[in-house]
């Protein structure tokens, strides 16, 4: 019963977001600020994780390719497609669910328990719209760029691993990443990214918005935001893959 009441509250919350904004210029400025907070500030962690993911995929693929019949350039192909189709959109968004999701839930949760949201409502401002919509728009616009950067850096990380460890000649790796490239894979990754960005921001905002109590409950909301966002990302990853690729 609890899950249904939570789902009901979530959809009611979603419905409250999309009323006419009080001042469009204020919302535009807030979207820019959120893009910086969600996107630019996550660039470091995204780059770091991607470069090591690409490197590890490359080395592990070489390690598992024991047949001499399989050409070595397949390693580059596997690294490229793994990064583009799964690792960049899904793993990076799971990382962002932890970083951005917890930050959104704790920010909005703290505003709730310190009556800042009540203050907005008494002024006649749609508090959920004002607080959540800019985060949602910013995440939907900026995360595809983060994922594109992740793809590029991850593939480059594979090349660096090939160069540094010598497990595969870099020429073969370069040939592999160019071999039978399907641009649709990038489109598919972008579709997943946009859906995941929506899930992270909406679930985290929802958890923060309905926080009741004090600092302990803010922490609990933050944890729930990360857990629920991550679970929903994995479920939707399967659903989208089934719908588009199967």
């Amino acid at each position: 019963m609890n899950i249904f009441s939570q789902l009901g509250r979530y959809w009611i919350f979603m419905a409250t977001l999309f009323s006419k904004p009080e001042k469009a210029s204020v919302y535009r400025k807030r979207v820019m600020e959120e893009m910086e907070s969600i996107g630019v500030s996550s660039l470091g962690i995204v780059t770091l994780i991607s470069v090591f993911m690409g490197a590890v995929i490359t080395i592990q693929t070489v390690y598992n390719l024991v047949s001499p019949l399989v050409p070595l350039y397949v390693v580059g192909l596997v690294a490229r497609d793994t990064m583009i189709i799964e690792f960049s959109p899904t793993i990076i968004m799971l990382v962002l669910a932890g970083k951005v999701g917890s930050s959104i839930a704790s920010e909005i949760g703290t505003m709730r328990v310190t009556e800042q949201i009540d203050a907005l409502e008494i002024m006649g401002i749609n508090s959920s719209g004002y607080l959540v919509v800019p985060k949602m728009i910013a995440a939907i616009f900026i995360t595809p760029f983060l994922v594109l950067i992740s793809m590029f850096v991850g593939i480059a990380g594979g090349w660096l691993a090939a160069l540094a460890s010598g497990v595969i000649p870099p020429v073969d790796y370069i040939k592999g990443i160019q071999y039978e490239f399907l641009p649709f894979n990038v489109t598919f990754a972008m579709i997943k990214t946009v859906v995941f960005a929506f899930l992270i921001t909406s679930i985290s905002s929802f958890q923060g918005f309905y926080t009741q109590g004090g600092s302990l409950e803010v922490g609990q909301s933050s944890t729930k935001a990360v857990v629920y966002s991550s679970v929903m990302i994995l479920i939707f990853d399967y659903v989208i893959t089934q719908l588009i690729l199967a």
Partner: protein
Amino acid sequence: MIEVKNVTKGFNGKKILENVSHKFERGKVNLIIGASGSGKTVLVKCMVGLVEVDAGRIEYDERNFSEMDFQTRKPIRREIGMLFQGSALFDSMTVEQNVMFPLKMLSNMSYSERADRVNFCLQRVNLPNSHKLFPSEISGGMKKRVAIARAIAMNPKYLYCDEPNSGLDPKTSIVIDELIMEITEEYQTCTVINTHDMNSVMTMGENILFIHQGKKWWSGTTAQIFKSDNEELDEFIFASKIMQNLRK
């Protein structure tokens, strides 16, 4: 004038407010007093629309607030200023941005007009040089004054103050009380204060509503408190030795 008519409110089957009716007058400091858990905060939350009433109605100058939805309430909400118990200043904004926020969101003023209004409001609460400070950098008393400046920025007709003196030292409490009284007189606001600070009751009580166990138990003025034979009111007001001596 704000009129509360037969308001009833409960949570999880338990009645918190029962058939409360009262008139809060314009140009006066109206106090809601009562022990902790008596229902006074719920009454204020019902009055500002943060909590919906189960029965009865809230009227702002004969406009039925309880029957309105979020959109139709907007014009009335813009006439309301509220000082929260914990000040509720936006942490990410400076003092100046906090006071400017309602003007930026709800008015069509230019930046210079808004800046002038902010200067005026901060001057009015005796905080002329705090524009660039963040809420985390100022004291509790200063936070309350910034919150008052934010509450009056839009020239409200109705001013709510939830426990304005909580967490403040006695001297600062007097400063805040005086400020609220001056603003009420200057702007002829209908000021509603939820308090259990006896000093506020004795100095500001022009129209006092005493809530006991969720019901309107007594109403009157400070002078009438001393003549009242209401047992629960007596117990509440004259609980401390200082108040007992004052009565003698």
